[in-house]
């Protein structure tokens, strides 16, 4: 109870001090907020693109488009041969009429397609390979390319792999950014607390003279760092949320053109709590480093 009262007192004192210099406080919080919002924004972007990729890609497949004018007999023969191939798990035949209908439904190009005098699409096989590694997929594709009556062989998953690689790259960039800016946050807090310790040197000295423990002297600074970090996290959250609102507004117009409902996903509750917790922790850490670095230098003489 006694400790709780003491902690509440320090918290009130900390808030008072934050309000005492509102401009400096606001500036610090904004800097921390912006620094945090960069990696968090990158994370949000990656998450949305990744979800889009997963939605479209599924498992890797190879599409084989037959030359136009291939007869029904030929199609059956090719189908049997494909089924017997050791590297192929399952095949699907997509007749050109079905393909046209699907296209009309899914892409919103029905106006254009309805205006066509004849079906421009070829018959196609969709091949599900047994092994989905890039090397074996490419080998299979190259083999199929040599077959007769195959006009075009397309490895559908190729772009997914490229996207994956790109996402990996993006993830690494976000991690590096996050680490660097975390250091920046710690450094900002470190410096703020250092200045505070210097300006409150006298108070610290007097407190030590009348029997304050190190924990007592450290506490308000740690609270300050923690609170500042937390408010910086809130600022980052607000920046991200506002940006997403603006971006999604313009993005929905863009996505409509592609007949997609793609939008950037906001931060989940878990994400938000992690962000706030992490920023508060970094603020505390910066304050702790600063206090342990500078407090021992102030000894009453």
């Amino acid at each position, binding site marked *: 109870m006694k400790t709780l009262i003491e902690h509440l007192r320090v918290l009130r004192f900390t808030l008072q001090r934050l309000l005492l210099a509102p401009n400096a406080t606001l500036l610090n919080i904004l800097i921390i907020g912006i620094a945090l919002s960069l990696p968090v924004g990158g994370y949000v972007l990656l998450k949305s693109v990744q979800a889009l990729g997963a939605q479209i890609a599924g498992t890797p497949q190879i599409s084989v488009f037959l030359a136009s004018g291939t007869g029904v007999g030929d199609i059956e023969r090719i189908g049997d041969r494909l089924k017997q191939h050791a590297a192929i798990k399952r095949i699907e035949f997509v007749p050109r009429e079905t393909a046209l209908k699907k296209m009309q439904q899914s892409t919103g190009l029905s106006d254009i397609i309805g205006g066509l005098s004849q079906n421009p699409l070829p018959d196609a096989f969709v091949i599900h390979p047994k092994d989905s590694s890039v090397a074996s997929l490419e080998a299979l594709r190259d083999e199929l390319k040599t077959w007769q009556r195959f006009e075009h062989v397309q490895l559908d998953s190729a772009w997914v792999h490229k996207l994956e690689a790109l996402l990996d790259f993006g993830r690494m960039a976000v991690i590096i950014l996050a680490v660097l800016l975390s250091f920046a946050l710690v450094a900002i807090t470190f410096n703020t607390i250092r200045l505070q310790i210097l300006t409150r040197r006298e108070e610290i000295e007097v407190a030590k003279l*009348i*029997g304050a*423990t190190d924990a007592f002297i450290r506490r308000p600074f740690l609270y300050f760092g923690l609170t500042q970090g937390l408010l910086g996290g809130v600022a980052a959250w607000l920046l991200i949320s506002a940006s997403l609102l603006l971006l999604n507004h313009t993005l929905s117009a863009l996505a409509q053109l592609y007949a997609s409902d793609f939008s950037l996903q906001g931060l989940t509750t878990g994400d938000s709590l992690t962000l706030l917790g992490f920023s508060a922790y970094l603020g505390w850490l910066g304050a702790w480093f600063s206090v342990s670095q500078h407090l021992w230098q102030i000894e009453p003489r």
Partner: protein
Amino acid sequence: MIRFNQVCKRYPGGHEALKNLSFDIAEGEMVYLTGHSGAGKSTLLKLVAAIERPSSGGVLVKGQNIRSIKPAAIPALRRNIGLIFQDHKLLFDRSAFDNVMLPLQICGFDHREAGKRVRAALDKVGLLEREKANPIALSGGEQQRLCIARAIVNRPTILLADEPTGNLDTEYSNEIMNIFKSFHQVGVTLLISTHDEGILRQFPARALHLRKGELQAHSTGSGQATDETTSHSTRPSNDKGQVAGYSTSSGQA
């Protein structure tokens, strides 16, 4: 309560502030520390409050050896010692009330109980009406009394005062000495450094006289201070300055 046993204090650079000091101060005793500036009075007080550590010899305060005390044990020791500084060391970013509140906050006192104690301490030094004032608005004498209020609010068993009447006129000095006398009456151990001979005459008590870091002599107050000054000028160094004997004060209230 306080025991010095062959204490030396050398500062880095070779300056020897205290040389081979031995004396005892009993519980509830009031003792003056006299001598010119630079004689080592402040250093001696700093040793008692564990602000400095002795270079050699033993300093025992309430049974704790200052020479080997662990840093973590210092706060608890200091809570038992009220420190009164010549330069007051008041904080000008808060009211008189909050200045006196600080020691109680450090001890984690209940807020309401602490408020009562702060007012009692302010009342004791006659500053109850000025509780909301910023210390900077107080006169020198009032600042000194505020410093005393802060030192006693935690009810320490030892009071150390470094030139408490340093730059005050006689009237203020007497006020402050009367306050000290009342603490002495309730059993607080007092060690007061001063070079104010008027005080020594008016409030006689045992005195430890320092000269260039050595303990020169003791006196029992009344009239002795002047004798000592003359005796020192004619007798620059008596044997090794290890005088540890003393007599009881004649004029204690």
